[in-house]
């Protein structure tokens, strides 16, 4: 799976719900149209274009993404450069994107299409944050455990975050399961502070009530 473009912008910007909704619509339409017209493995061409061609030739990507190049010119470029080596179905899809001025969404569309296909295949992405890189044994342990608990095939997206100190944080959809050392220490701190408060209060009560000792 490719990273999203525009590295300088954080992920969350690309998670802009409006853009995401539009890209999801394109990705869904692409996959549905592919299955209706009997195109097998529609993601192959999409992935190859984004990963091999656009990533391999950044100038070409800039040319297609740029607003200073007219739509007709872009269509002609696609016709000349991409059409001879790819299927008509895929070229049509690219042309639709260009006509609607949405070609810059292509990486996002690819991303979402992959996700949709994974979901269709009963897989689900799970973000795993750990203090150190996961070893193979712990990775397989996590996968096995998730599989037995949730009943789907987990696709782990691993990130290493040293500030967790230890343990892992799993995120399934919008739900986070946090068993990192950092949050446990935070819990412990809260507990100790609360305990101290109660000690202070009971100390005060002892002096404020005449019947106390």
């Amino acid at each position, binding site marked *: 799976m490719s990273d999203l473009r525009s590295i300088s912008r954080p992920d*969350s910007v690309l998670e802009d719900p409006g853009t995401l909704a539009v890209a999801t619509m394109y990705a869904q339409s692409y996959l549905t149209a592919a299955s209706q017209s009997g195109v097998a493995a529609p993601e192959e061409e999409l992935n190859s274009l984004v990963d091999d061609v656009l990533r391999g030739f950044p100038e070409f990507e800039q040319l297609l993404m740029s607003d200073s190049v007219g739509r007709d010119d872009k269509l002609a470029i696609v016709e000349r450069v991409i059409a001879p080596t790819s299927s008509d179905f895929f070229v049509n899809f690219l042309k639709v994107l260009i006509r609607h001025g949405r070609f810059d969404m292509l990486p996002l569309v690819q991303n979402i299409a992959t996700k949709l296909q994974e979901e269709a295949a009963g897989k689900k992405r799970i973000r795993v944050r750990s203090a150190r890189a996961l070893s193979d044994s712990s990775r397989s342990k996590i996968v096995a455990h998730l599989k037995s608990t949730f009943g789907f095939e987990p696709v782990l997206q691993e990130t290493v975050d040293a500030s967790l100190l230890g343990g892992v944080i799993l995120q399934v959809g*919008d739900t*986070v399961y946090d068993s990192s050392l950092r949050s446990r220490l935070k819990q412990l701190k809260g*507990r100790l502070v609360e305990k101290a408060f109660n000690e202070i209060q009971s100390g005060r009560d002892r002096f404020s009530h005449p019947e106390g000792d």
Partner: protein
Amino acid sequence: MKFRADEIASVIQKEIEDFRGQIQTAEVGRVIEVGDGIARCTGLSNVMSGEMLEFPNGTRGFAFNLEENSVGVVILGDYLKIAEGDEVRSRGKLLSVPVGEALLGRMVDPLGNPLDGKGPVITSESRPVEWLAAGVAERQPVKEPLQTGIKAIDAMTPVGRGQRELIIGDRKTGKTAIAIDTILNQKDTGVICVYVACGQRASSIAGVVEILREKGALDYTIIVAATSADPAPLQYIGPYAGAAMAEYFMYKGMHTLIVYDDLSKQAVAYRQLSLLMRRPPGREAFPGDVFYCHSRLLDRAVKLNKELGGGSMTALPIIETLEGEVSAYIPTNVISITDGQIYLEPDLFWKGIRPAINVGVSVSRVGGNAQTKAMKKIAGSLRLDLAAFRELEAFAQLGTELDKDTQAQLDRGYRMVELLKQRQYGPLHVADQVVAIYAGTKGYFDKVPVAKVAETEKELHEFIRTEHADMRDKLVAEAALTEEIEGMLKKALAAFVTRLSAKA
């Protein structure tokens, strides 16, 4: 006493050994946009409206807008430290504040964090900020008086426990003063007071606190402060938080008084939030639900039925008008919600009539049932007499010759107006009020020069307290002007008048 370090260390060690951290499960989302006290987040797909959320730096917020693709979050605290991409966690509960006896005498912010430097508020109980008001079956009619200690109010616009009485007027007309006097008058009555300062200058809040402390009223008062420097969300939830703190005592069967100072600023804060959340603006750019914002707050002031302990919450909301414009949006809204209003006028204020209550426009819709019998008896005609006096006064200004009766009515009117004046922070017991108003309406002050009425009234109270304490005690105990007490009162007043004339 010396601390034994090893003992403390072993306690902490044991605590740590016994600690089993649990896996925390939470719904999360990400901030995609933040600014001016609000944030827009993605994710949080199962979050509920009004649910409490937490940002990475510990700042709290609550879900305000649930939209198709995002959640609008109101940030309660420092929003400058929240960045795009930050994780937001849901807390799985509604926004709540600490409540309980520990809050008495404290000044807290609308989240219950102490602001007075007296250490943490130690209480294990909390209540949701938003709470549905008691239903019809859970209430009973307002029937007990809540004495404000202000003659003009207790006589003509009486407030009952569980009532909502609006204090409305321009700036600098003594709105807060009335509320503070009412709080001061609750001393030794067992009424718990909550003063919610919303959008006020920090200096004026400090002034209020100082007065309460000085007069010993802080022991039964909670101050919830959201100054004008605090973010709009805090100003918006301040009144609800105060209501939650008062409700705790009310549902325990106690009587409470809550002052919202002031709701026009809260409405402005709510308007800011709503506009930032892109809710459509209506009249005066306020959102459509600003009425509900106030009505659900004020409906929490109730007199509970006996099964629920018979507690009560009396609300004194304050509204500031601009140039006496009561037909603006927020004033009309709140006037229609409350059970009456005390209308303060700058003209009266500058004429020296303080409290500057416009008797003609001020009303109390339910308080009459709550008045003590004694007060009801003597105050019944007071309002009409004063209205008649004002008419005559306007007429007399034309310089016409007046007959003797009219002149006498005018003279008494001048003295009654003088008698209803009251200095700030000097609430009077209802028995003393009855004595003073009785003396005024029955003409015992007619011979006193207008300029000396206040002084003479003071002497009268002194006289009654020292020489007719038995009559006063009886009046306090029975709270009614029986024939016996009235006879004693007449005798006492006659003696007082003779003494006055002897002095003159």
